[in-house]
């Protein structure tokens, strides 16, 4: 800093006199680097840089994160999708952890290639290994914090491995997890480890690592003794080849091209720079090496940015387009880019109720995950504990092979061990990826199996649920989200689109079919014969097909063929069947009397049926949304005596001209009561009555059980009253919320159900 007579200078002189900071600074910056500054020394600094970035972004996240079973997902959601630049902060932290793991590998490789793990630097190697353990610990604990499905299920594998340690394992697991199952204390424990224990430990180890490092200085590669400079063209070609290889591998495993090119570009930049750099024999850290370190760090930062921006890891929130003149400006668009899908991945909220979630750890732990697959039964411990810990032990022992005449061998052994460990880990990772791939990998690496395709379905479903959860949590206005205080998992549990079909299958599907329908592109349907990977499921139905129930087409189909199994064919409901028989007989007579005239009359009747179907299909709407002309025409057809006379059995809302006032139309509820009422036919209220009290709709002929909540206070009284009135109708349990979920799904109203109240209005 400034010295001398300026005010600044005097101030710093004064500070230096009291603190001695200048000599401290010099001691730090003026490290001797014999052989001069080099690109190959940057990796350690890059690691430290990313760690500092993790600390900064981590503290930012703590500003808004809330560990807790009902709050964690919501708070991470809020960071990622609602807070200004939250997507960037979280994205950098998310990819920072992955970057650190990669850099650890590179740093380690560079250390053994230089032989820097050998005497007198053993302690530094050991400290490095401890640092690696801490970083992996941070990654593992961090992965759980968002409390999404992926972290929740993958981390259980890790804590179960802890539990498998003979003797003390079960105890340790219970303490770490904070009880027998995952919950609030799992999060508080992991959170404390992640932000309160492991980072300070890492800082401590890092400081020791650096102090010990300074004692012996950097290990210069053998080539710099003697000729002093590595043959320049060779180095340039090498850099270009490394860069190219990296780009190739990245593209192969599906990394975005911008990211791949930034990674490769770093090495190409190193290569090109060699034409401008003069090597010197001795140089200080400052500024030559510092400059290189900084450039490399900025490259790393740029790579992380490309991952956050182009990684495609977030989910886009679909919102209605902004009103004219209210479009977000450039700042808003950038600050809230999380809503466009930028940032880090957030899976659906953790839900212990989930069946068969395909838990996968973060990619850098996949090799350990894959290793587990090769050991059966009691051999499990070999894959889970013996091999990984054996590898660590081997790494710990490496420096001991560096004494005296063994040194050359030790150097060689280090390279062999580290390279083969990295290669095996890489290979196992590739195998794990291949095994999950629905299309086969080249070279018979795996994939393309039935299991993999099935798992792909499960992954796809998880992705759909993740997207849906985010959509339900968001409101149209950035900064306002709709997560209930019971916790984010309730969003999907009470989402008609997600839960409706499952509940339908469980409660209604025992009797009702649901054919695949173009109106439900995301539902596979519920049919007599389903081929699943585990075998063929055959179902026997006893009632109508409810696909598109209440639509014009459905009603028209019923009028055509009430006895068809997809209508009332399987039920004991006879009214409509008899009606149709009469129609058919009459038609046969018409044709017999006069073929021409008969055909005309049939066509006329068919038109009337079309009209009735159309009219009945709009009864589910509120009166004000119904087509008035159709109401008038429909009422006429409903009352038409030519065929069977609907109103002799059914009651409907008739829309007719007022008797007193000409030209004025009024509603009047009238008709018979042998068949079900058409008042509000197909509406949620109609279905609700049908579900809770089918006998009110179909009286004696009814065979559908009544579905009611039967375990709340007061429910028993209602049940007994109901049975007293309808003794033949069995009562089945169905909670209010589950019933509403089914009804909303049937009527394609996909808003979340909240204790019967709609809180979230996803597009209808």
């Amino acid at each position, binding site marked *: 800093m400034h010295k001398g007579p300026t005010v600044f200078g005097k101030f710093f002189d004064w500070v230096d006199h009291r603190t001695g900071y200048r000599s401290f600074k010099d001691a730090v910056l003026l490290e001797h680097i014999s052989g001069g500054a080099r690109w190959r020394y940057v990796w350690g600094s890059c690691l430290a840089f990313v760690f500092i970035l993790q600390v900064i972004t981590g503290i930012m996240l703590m500003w808004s994160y809330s560990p807790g079973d009902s709050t964690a997902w919501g708070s991470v959601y809020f960071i990622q999708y609602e807070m200004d630049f939250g997507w960037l902060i979280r994205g950098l932290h998310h990819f920072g952890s992955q970057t650190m793991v990669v850099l650890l590998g590179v740093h380690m490789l560079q250390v053994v290639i230089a032989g820097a793990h050998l005497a007198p630097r053993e302690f530094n190697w050991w400290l490095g290994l401890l640092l690696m353990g801490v970083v992996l610990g941070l990654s593992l604990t961090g992965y759980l914090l968002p409390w999404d499905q992926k972290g929740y299920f993958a981390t259980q594998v890790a804590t179960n491995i802890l539990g498998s340690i003979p003797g003390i394992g079960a105890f340790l697991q219970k303490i770490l997890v904070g009880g027998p199952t995952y919950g609030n204390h799992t999060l508080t424990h992991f959170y404390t480890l992640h932000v309160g224990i492991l980072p300070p430990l890492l800082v401590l180890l890092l400081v020791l690592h650096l102090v010990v490092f300074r004692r012996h200085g950097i290990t210069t590669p053998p080539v710099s003794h003697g000729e002093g400079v590595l043959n320049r063209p060779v180095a340039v070609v090498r850099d270009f080849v490394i860069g190219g290889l990296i780009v190739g591998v990245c593209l192969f495993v599906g990394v975005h091209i911008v990211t791949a090119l930034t990674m490769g570009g770093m090495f190409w930049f190193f290569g090109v720079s060699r034409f401008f750099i003069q090597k010197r024999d001795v140089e200080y850290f400052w500024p030559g090496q510092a400059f290189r370190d900084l450039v490399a760090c900025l490259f790393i930062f740029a790579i992380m940015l490309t991952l956050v921006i182009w990684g495609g890891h977030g989910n886009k929130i679909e919102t209605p387009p902004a009103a004219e003149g209210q479009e977000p400006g450039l700042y808003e668009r950038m600050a809230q880019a999380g809503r466009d899908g930028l940032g880090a991945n957030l899976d659906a909220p953790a839900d212990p109720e989930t069946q068969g979630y395909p838990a996968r750890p973060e990619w850098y732990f996949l090799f350990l995950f894959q290793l587990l697959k090769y050991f059966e039964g009691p051999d499990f411990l070999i894959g889970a504990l013996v091999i990984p810990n054996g590898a660590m032990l081997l790494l710990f022992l490496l420096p001991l092979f560096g004494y005296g005449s063994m040194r050359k061998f030790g150097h060689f052994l280090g390279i062999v061990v580290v390279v083969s460990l990295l290669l095996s880990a890489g290979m196992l990772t590739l195998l794990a990826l291949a095994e999950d791939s629905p299309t086969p990998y080249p070279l018979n690496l795996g994939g393309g199996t039935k299991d993999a395709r099935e798992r792909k379905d499960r992954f796809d479903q998880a992705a759909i649920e993740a997207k849906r959860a985010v959509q339900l949590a968001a409101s149209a206005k950035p900064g306002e*989200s709709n*997560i209930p*205080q019971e916790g984010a998992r309730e969003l999907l549990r009470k989402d008609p689109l997600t839960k409706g079909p499952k509940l339908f299958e469980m409660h209604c599907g025992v009797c009702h079919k649901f054919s695949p329908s173009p109106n439900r592109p995301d539902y596979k349907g519920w049919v007599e014969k389903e081929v699943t990977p585990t075998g063929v499921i055959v179902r026997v139905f006893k009632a109508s097909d409810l696909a598109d129930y209440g639509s014009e087409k459905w009603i028209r189909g019923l009028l055509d063929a009430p006895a068809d199994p997809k209508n009332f064919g399987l039920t004991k409901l006879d009214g409509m069947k008899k009606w149709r028989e009469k129609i058919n007989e009459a038609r046969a007579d018409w044709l017999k009397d006069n073929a021409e005239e008969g055909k005309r009359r049939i066509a006329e009747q068919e038109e009337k049926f079309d009209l009735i179907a159309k009219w009945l299909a709009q009864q589910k709407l509120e009166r004000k949304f119904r087509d008035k002309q159709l109401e008038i025409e429909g009422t006429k057809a409903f009352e038409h005596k030519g065929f069977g006379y609907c109103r002799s059995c059914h009651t409907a809302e008739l829309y007719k001209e007022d008797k007193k006032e000409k030209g004025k139309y009024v509603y009047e509820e009238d008709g018979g009561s042998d068949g079900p009422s058409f008042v509000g036919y197909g509406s949620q209220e109609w279905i609700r009555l049908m579900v809770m009290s089918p006998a009110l709709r179909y009286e004696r002929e009814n065979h559908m059980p009544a579905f009611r909540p039967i375990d709340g206070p007061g429910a028993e009284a209602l049940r007994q009253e109901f049975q007293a009135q309808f003794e033949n109708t069995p009562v089945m349990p169905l909670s209010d919320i589950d019933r509403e979920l089914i009804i909303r799904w049937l009527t394609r109203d996909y808003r979340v159900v909240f204790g019967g109240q709609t809180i979230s209005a996803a597009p209808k």
Partner: protein
Amino acid sequence: MADQERRTFLKFCVHGLGAVFAAVLGVPVVSYLIDPRRRQTAGGDLRPVSGIRLTELRMEIPVQGVIRDIRRDAWTLHPNDTVGRVWVMRTRDGNSAESFRVFTTECPHLGCSVNLNSDPSTGYTCPCHNGQFQLDGERIGHNPALRGMDSLEFEVDPADPDQLLVRFLKFRQTLAEKVVRT
């Protein structure tokens, strides 16, 4: 001297690149930290007061009512939560704008909830720093508050003569004048 120049150049680059990086990270970090500035206070619309039937109010005796509304707490949505309380007092017969007096219970000093004295005719006392107010909200005696209790705009529900509607707002504390807090 060439070496000196090279060193100077490199130092310049290091400082420059460092500054660029600090800006790229610094702007988002600051925006993120001050994100709460975008969050809005609940209220502002006419809301029904629950717990009070206007026709049953006795003259000059304040009764406390509750205002419920949507409340957003960062990520959590409370669809129907208590967002505030009001003291409502009848001052005259009928249901006109002069028939009632409505105050928020939030003390204008530092925001504690103001209590009605056990003898209602003597007015209100704040439990925190003994701010005392008359029934008309004016300050009494030596008082830490710089203004009287904050009155709120109200209307009687045209469809229900028992139902009071209040435009519930929060006001900044400690000031001598009433300023809405957003």
